C-alpha cells in the first residue's frame, strides 16, 4: 500500500476534479446567455468555483513538493511515462493558469472578483477593454487545452484499469485495492 498517493493528495485530486467538472460546463453555458439576473448569478458561481480551484491547486502543489508521489509502474514503457508526466505537469499548470486568467479577465473587464460575495480579491490589472478581450481569448484557449488533456488523462487511467489491468488508477482511488 505504500505506492499510493497520500490521502490528502487523493482528496485534493478528486475535489478539484469535481469542481472542474462543474466550472467548465458552467462557463461554456453561461457566456452565451442573454443578460439576466440568472446570468449574473452563474458568473459569480463560476468565479467562486474558479477561485476555490486556484486555492486548492496551490495547496495541492505545495503538498506535492513535500510528499513525493508514488512512481509510475515499472512495467510502463518510457514513452508512456513521459506522456503521463507531461500531461500531469500541464494539468498542474492549467489548474493555476485558468483561474488566474479568469480573475485577471474579470478585473480587466471592470468587475472585481469577490469570493463567495464576501472576500474581494485585489484587481491585479485595471479596467481595459482590449486587455479584457485578450484575456478572454487566453481563458478560452487554456480551457480547450484543458479539455483535451483531461480526456487524455481519463483515457490513460481507463486504459491502465481496464486494458492493462494494472494498479495505476488504484494509486489515486480512495477505495480501490491494489490488484497486485
Amino acid at each position, binding site marked *: 500500500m505504500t505506492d499510493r498517493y497520500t490521502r490528502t493528495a487523493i482528496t485534493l485530486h478528486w475535489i478539484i476534479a469535481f469542481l472542474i467538472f462543474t466550472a467548465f460546463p458552467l462557463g461554456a453555458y453561461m457566456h452565451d446567455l442573454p443578460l439576466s439576473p440568472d446570468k449574473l448569478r452563474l458568473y459569480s458561481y463560476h468565479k467562486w468555483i474558479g477561485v476555490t480551484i486556484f486555492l486548492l491547486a496551490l495547496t495541492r502543489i505545495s503538498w506535492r513538493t513535500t510528499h513525493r508521489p508514488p512512481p509510475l509502474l515499472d512495467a510502463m514503457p518510457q514513452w508512456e511515462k513521459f506522456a503521463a508526466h507531461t500531461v500531469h505537469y500541464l494539468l498542474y499548470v492549467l489548474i493555476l493558469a485558468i483561474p488566474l486568467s479568469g480573475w485577471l479577465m474579470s478585473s480587466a473587464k471592470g468587475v472585481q472578483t469577490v469570493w463567495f*460575495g464576501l472576500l474581494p480579491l485585489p484587481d491585479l490589472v485595471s479596467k481595459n477593454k482590449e486587455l479584457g478581450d485578450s484575456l478572454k481569448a487566453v481563458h478560452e484557449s487554456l480551457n480547450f487545452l484543458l479539455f483535451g488533456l483531461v480526456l487524455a488523462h481519463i483515457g490513460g487511467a481507463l486504459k491502465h484499469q481496464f486494458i492493462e489491468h494494472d494498479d495505476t488508477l488504484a494509486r489515486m482511488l480512495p477505495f480501490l485495492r491494489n490488484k497486485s
Partner: protein
Amino acid sequence: MIRLLVVPLLFVASLAAGTEFSVLLPQQSSITFVSKQMNVPVEGSFRKFTAQISVDPTKPETGKARIELDLASIDTGNTDADEEVAGKAWFDSKNNPIASFTSESINSTGKGQYQVTGKLTIKGKALDAKAPFTLRQAGGVLLIEGAFPLKRLDFNIGSGIWGDTSVVADEVQIRFSFTVAAKK
C-alpha cells in the same frame, strides 16, 4: 513691488465681494455610479449631462443647481448591459431620456461641507433627494464633489426579474464632481 501686492489684493477683494461661479467645465466634471452586483461593486458613468450651477463661495447657501443627465449616455463598462438598461425595465430611455435634479436649498454642515436638497426626477417620478458635498477652490476654479445613495427601485429602475435585489442591490451610489469657473 506695489503691483505684486495689488494683484493678489484685487483677487481677494473680488472673492470677498462674492464672485459667482457658474461656468461648468465639462472635461473636468463627471457623474459616476457604483452598483453592487452579487455584492461586487461595479462602476459606471454617464457621458452626457448638463449642469447649470451658480455658486458664490462666500455664501454657498444661496447657490443653485440644475443637472440634466442623458440616460442613454450611460457607460456600464459592458455593451450588453448598456443596451439592457436602456430598456423598459430599467431607464426606458426612449420615453424618458432625461433624469434631472433641481436644487431647493443648500445648508452648511461644516467647514467647506454642505448639503443640498432638491427634487430628483427619473422616469417621470419626482422624489426628494439630498446629497452632501464639499466646496474647494483651486487654481481659480471651484470644485464641487459629493455622493449620495439612490434606491433604484424607488424610481422603478430595474423592475421585473431585475427587482431581485440579491443580484443587483437596490442601493446605487451616485458620485458627482463638477468643476465650475467664475462667471466672466
